[in-house]
């Protein structure tokens, strides 16, 4: 008894007890919540994976192989992650319309649930980048538009143009316009690097910086046409076109009229 009370009054007793308590509570919560999640979602997840597999077998396997192992014309999908599937399928790029150099954006073939099932199935094959959640994508709160613009001009503008209007790459490939693209898909493109695009890992561009980029793109998208008609925001080519058609056309018209009146 005496020994116990001596230990209880030891200098280290407080901190040790605190650490012990935190450890116990933390572990208990972790185990409890994990067990909880597993018990409720394991069955669901299995069903979703099965659904996804069925869609995959019907719509994707002819090119990507029966087990997503890839083939001569399409890459393996093992390890590409849910984010990649979500980006490619939800923007309509996959399934491809034809075997051109690059998959075009078009109306999606599958609805949101089917895309989710497909993504879950592919993610179940091997771990890969996850679809970013709503909470993560709060770019209005977590992004900085000026920093985003700076990052955009350093990393993105060389292909996607200074205002995100897109641009040409070699051999008919192109960087698509970023106007009207959902923030989720922009984020997924950055972490998965679809088609000709490089992967911008979280080490290269942190998640907060990615949100800043998205915020800048959205700000450019909603920016009013400050100087009048924006002429496509592609630089001086359209300006030259306008001055050689409308500009000089009007002036020559007036010149003809002035010379006519004197007759």
């Amino acid at each position, binding site marked *: 008894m005496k020994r116990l009370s001596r230990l209880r009054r030891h200098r280290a007793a407080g901190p040790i007890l605190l650490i012990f308590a935190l450890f116990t509570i933390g572990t208990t919560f972790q185990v409890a919540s994990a067990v909880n999640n597993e018990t409720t979602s394991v069955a669901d997840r299995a069903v979703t994976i099965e659904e996804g597999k069925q869609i995959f077998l019907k719509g994707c396997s002819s090119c990507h192989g029966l087990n997503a192992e890839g083939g001569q014309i399409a890459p393996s999908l093992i390890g590409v992650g849910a984010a990649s599937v979500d980006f490619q399928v939800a923007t309509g790029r996959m399934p491809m319309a034809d075997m051109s150099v690059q998959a075009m954006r078009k109306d999606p073939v599958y609805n949101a649930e089917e895309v989710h099932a497909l993504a879950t199935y592919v993610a179940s094959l091997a771990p890969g980048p996850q679809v970013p959640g709503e909470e993560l994508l709060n770019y209005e709160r977590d992004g900085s538009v000026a920093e985003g613009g700076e990052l955009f001009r350093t990393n993105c503008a060389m292909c996607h143009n200074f*205002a995100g209007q897109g641009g040409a790459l070699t051999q008919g490939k192109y960087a698509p316009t970023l106007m009207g693209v959902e923030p989720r898909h922009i984020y997924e493109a950055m972490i998965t690097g679809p088609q000709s695009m490089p992967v911008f890992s979280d080490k290269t561009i942190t998640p907060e910086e990615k949100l800043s980029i998205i915020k800048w793109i959205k700000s450019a998208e909603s920016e009013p046409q400050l100087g009048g008609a924006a002429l496509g925001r592609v630089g001086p080519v359209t*300006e030259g076109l306008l*001055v050689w058609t409308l500009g*000089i056309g009007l002036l020559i018209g007036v*010149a003809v009229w002035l*010379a006519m009146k*004197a007759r």
Partner: protein
Amino acid sequence: MTARERIAGNVAGYVDDRTGAAKWMKKNLTKVFPDHWSFLLGEICLYSFIILLLSGTFLTFWFDPSMREVVYDGSYEPLKGLEMSAAYASTLDISFEVRGGLLMRQIHHWAALIFMVGIVVHLLRVYFTGAFRKPREFNWIIGVGLLTLGIVEGFLGYSLPDDLLSGTGIRIAEAIIQALPLVGSYLAFFAFDGAFPGTAFIPRIYTVHVLLLPGIFLALITVHLMLVWYQKHTQFPGPGRTEKNVVGYPLMPVYMAKAGGFFFIVFGVTAFLGAVASINPIWLYGPYTPGQISAGSQPDWYMGWLDGLVRMAPPLETHAFGHTISWNILIPGLILPGIMFTGLALYPFIESWATGDKREHHLLDRPRNTPNRTAIGVMALTFTLVSLINGGNDIIATTFHLTINQMMWFSRIAIIVLPPIAFVITKRLCLSLQRADRDLVLHGRETGRLVRMPSGEFVEVHEPISPEKAWLLTSHEQLAPLELPEHDASGVRRAGSIKNKIRNRVSRAAAVAVPKATETERRELEGHH
């Protein structure tokens, strides 16, 4: 005499007593100018130059030509807090803080584009009508000088805001300077006061843009107009118009009213474009840093052909004695433009050498009557147009779903193949038009009325054309080819016979024509019908 007339007379008399202006005014205010819409094209340039001076002066009140680093704290949110040069920040301020500043910036830039378009269409009119011939060769050279300086002035102007797009252009200009063998690197260091970008070039090009070049422009434009005044304006051929007279209206009041009105219309069109169409939206480009670049970076259109030439150049380099010569920049960036502008400036002399025509000309040519000149012009235009199109190859590729590689190979082949084809087609077209003129004079206008003759034969009734029209179609002269001696009397080749042989061949090509209808032919045919 009313009181008002007396006062006006007294004022005029007061001024005349002191300046002797009355005699000069009387002579010059009644000066006659011929009337044609294409004679107003040069005025477009003059008026847009005045607009450029006015709007440019406005811009200098707020523009800070300095590369000092500042932190932006204006009202344009997406750039707030970024470090940038004072030049870029003050251009943002002109756009967003100064009342009417954005409109003025856009008017200034649109006026610059119209200025350059005006110069080009004016040059085309002068070229295709042969208005550059004696005695106007000097004025032609001044015009070519204005075109060249206009390109430089425009380039320096849009480089001033120090935005991402213009900085890219400056970088390319530096590369072109560096491509000069031996002296290139030194010249680039001299121009930029050290390594690119440094802190010197914005203040330097500002001085050149707002002081040096406008001064030269003002001087050259004055000389250009004084020569027009002194040599009198050319006129199109027509009844009563000769090499020795000018048929038209006096300066006062007809041309004063027309020219004054046209100034305001040019100003109106420029202001309209400035108000409704965005140009050079520098806030979207962002501040310049050498580490950044945008897809689809293009120069303004008057530099576009130069960019197109550089873009299509194959990657050629030689390394010798520790030096690199970048032919891929040197040829399209300096050698080809040098040849093009020298050829353009010397064209009047080349033509008179080829045709042997050293006389004065005040009557203009119809382009069809000089097939060789017209064909050379279209050939040069085709060359420039192909390179201009290739300057926008990435924008065209994405717009029309082509590949940039196809565009480049099309341009590489077309720039060699198309100009000669354009030459041949144009020459044939001119000759066909001459043939049509000849038919018109000899057989009259086809009325489309068919008459059945008693013999059962159907004929179309031709109506004779008016004497004025017939004069217009036959008044031009057709030059005979030169026949310079290649051998002397005893059949021995003379000194300089090769030169004469070349001149004979060139002048034969220039003199190819369908013989115009003559009076005897006309009479003969009339007797026939």
